[in-house]
């Protein structure tokens, strides 16, 4: 069975500082990986996804993530955060032939001025 672990439930950072949100997954087959963001009082929206090809994936709002098969990780990074990045971030995994996403527990990113 697949699973996703987001190692930090909360990450506080200062505005304009870099941030990394960590995600590890377990799966015995090839995976597709996703990062979704949930702004306050909203549903989730896709930040980026890895399906195949380059292991460095660029998403919206300056975020990027790197797929590391040997480490079974898909960490999300941004070199300089803004107040508007305050949100909850979810990592998710699925595999070829599956329709279901398995989500991690979420990481709440708080930006301090």
């Amino acid at each position, binding site marked *: 069975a697949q699973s996703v672990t987001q190692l930090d439930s909360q990450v506080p950072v200062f505005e304009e500082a870099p941030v990394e949100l960590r995600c590890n997954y377990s799966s015995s087959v090839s995976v597709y990986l996703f990062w979704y963001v949930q702004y306050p009082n909203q*549903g*989730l929206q896709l930040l980026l996804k890895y*399906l195949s090809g380059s292991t460095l994936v660029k998403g919206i709002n300056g975020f990027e993530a790197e797929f590391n098969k040997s480490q079974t990780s898909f960490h999300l990074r941004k070199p300089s955060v803004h107040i508007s990045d305050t949100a909850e971030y979810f990592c998710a995994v699925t595999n070829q*032939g599956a329709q279901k996403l398995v*989500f991690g*527990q*979420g990481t709440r990113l708080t930006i301090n001025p």
Partner: protein
Amino acid sequence: DVKVTQSSRYLVKRTGEKVFLECVQDMDHENMFWYRQDPGLGLRLIYFSYDVKMKEKGDIPEGYSVSREKKERFSLILESASTNQTSMYLCASSSEVLAGETQYFGPGTRLLVL
């Protein structure tokens, strides 16, 4: 733009009531999903549907049922609401049947069962 709408943002119900949560998508998507979101647990799949009148159980289907009579509409039903069903409920849809397709989410319904 894909739009997924949910019938209510907030609902308050009493224990034992039958509760209907409605979800509508406007992009002719094949797949629709119902999740519940709880702090520290992320999103957990309740049911999903890949076609009209088709449904499959997710990871936590107990206490819930679903209905998909039309392609654009997917309803979640709590037959007899209980306090442990107090949660945020999120609906999503996606096109195609291939894995890797983006899911588009509604704004959520926050349900309180007293």
